[in-house]
Every structure is written in structure tokens, then in C-alpha cells.
């Protein structure tokens, strides 16, 4: 199982801030593909992924227990 975190527009599109996903093995890109299929109305073009609170490339391995966050373009400050 992995822990997914949604923010801003994606949180609103998904209707939730977090959810858990059954998971054995795969990459950040696999998680992204799952999200694209699950939330087809949301545009993931500019979204970056973070695994365990660090930005990652899409080939980053994702293991059970990991936290995967979808990071839309930030606008703090």
C-alpha cells in the first residue's frame, strides 16, 4: 500500500486530500498513470511528483509504505 496526497485543484477534483492505494512495486510514473486514469478530468501536465517529501523523476521506484504527493505548480509567497 502507498499513501497518496492531493493538493489545490487536484484535491478538489478528487474530492479528497489523501487516499491509500494497494501497491507492490513500480515507479512514480506508474502512480501518475493510475491517477490519470482515475481522475481523467484533471490535467496533470504541469504536475510534479514527490516521493517521501522529495521531488522525483518519473523513473523513481515507489515501494509499499511510500508517500507519493502530486505537486501542481506552486504559488506560495
Amino acid at each position: 500500500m502507498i499513501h497518496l496526497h492531493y493538493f489545490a485543484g487536484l484535491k478538489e477534483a478528487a474530492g479528497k486530500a489523501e487516499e491509500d492505494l494497494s501497491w507492490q512495486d513500480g515507479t512514480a510514473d506508474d502512480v501518475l498513470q493510475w491517477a490519470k486514469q482515475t481522475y481523467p478530468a484533471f490535467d496533470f501536465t504541469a504536475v510534479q511528483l514527490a516521493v517521501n517529501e522529495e521531488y522525483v523523476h518519473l523513473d523513481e521506484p515507489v515501494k509499499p509504505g511510500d508517500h507519493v504527493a502530486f505537486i501542481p505548480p506552486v504559488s506560495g509567497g
Partner: protein
Amino acid sequence: MGTELKPFHVTEGPIEAAPYMEYVTHPGAGAVTAFAGTVREWTNGKRTMYLKYEAYVPMAEKKLAQIGDEIMEKWPGSRVAIVHRVGELAISDIAVVIAVSSPHRKAAYEANEYAIEQIKKVVPIWKKEMWEDGEEWIGDQSYKPEKESENE
């Protein structure tokens, strides 16, 4: 402040610059700069009613601390503290405070400006503008260079 100040903090409560300026002040400092990002009423001819900020708090605090580390490396002798508020903010409320001390003033200005630029690039915090007739999550300004000067 009776309680210990957290130098890289994301918080729901109102924030102010003073305790962060004090926190970075020390006998080796000759200059302390503070930046406070405040909620502006009018942007591009649209009137903001209020703002909502949301953050991925643990990662945001980690990224703020990384910015602090980068500054201490780039500008030796500097000290840094950064706090960002989340939740609903009214006009003129402070959204972010950056305090930097340095032996000399040039570094204190440069490092402070570096911090806000990095925050706008890498720290997972999002702003939603609430207007009279709608609302919108504001995306990364670096994707809209023609609007760069209009977005604080």
C-alpha cells in the same frame, strides 16, 4: 515569544516579522532584512476579496529549511528564518515572512530575495484567489513570464 520559535515554519495563525528578525539577530550580524508578502487588494484590475493558502506542510517545511541551508552556504555568516501562513487571509494580512541576518548588508538583501524566489519555485504551497465573481488556484508564475511582474 515565550515559546521556542520554529525557524522554518508553516502555520495557520497570523504571522509577523518581529520575532523572526530577532531570531536571526546575533553579535556577528551588521544587517537584518525582512520580507513580508502581504495580500494585495487589486491584481491585474481584479479585486481580491481574500486568499486561501494550502500547503503540503511537512515537505514545505523541509524545503524552507533547505533554502536556509543554501543561503548559509552561499552567504557565509548568514542566519535565516522563514514562516509561511496557510488558511484564509484577508487584504494586508502577511502570507510569508523571510528574515535574514548577515555580517554585511549586501548579502542580507541578496539572500532574502533569493529566498522568496526559491519559495515561489520549489516550496509546495498554493494560493487560491477569491474574487467577487469567482475563484482560481494560482499556478506557477514561471510558466507565465508575461505576468511575472504582476504576481507577488
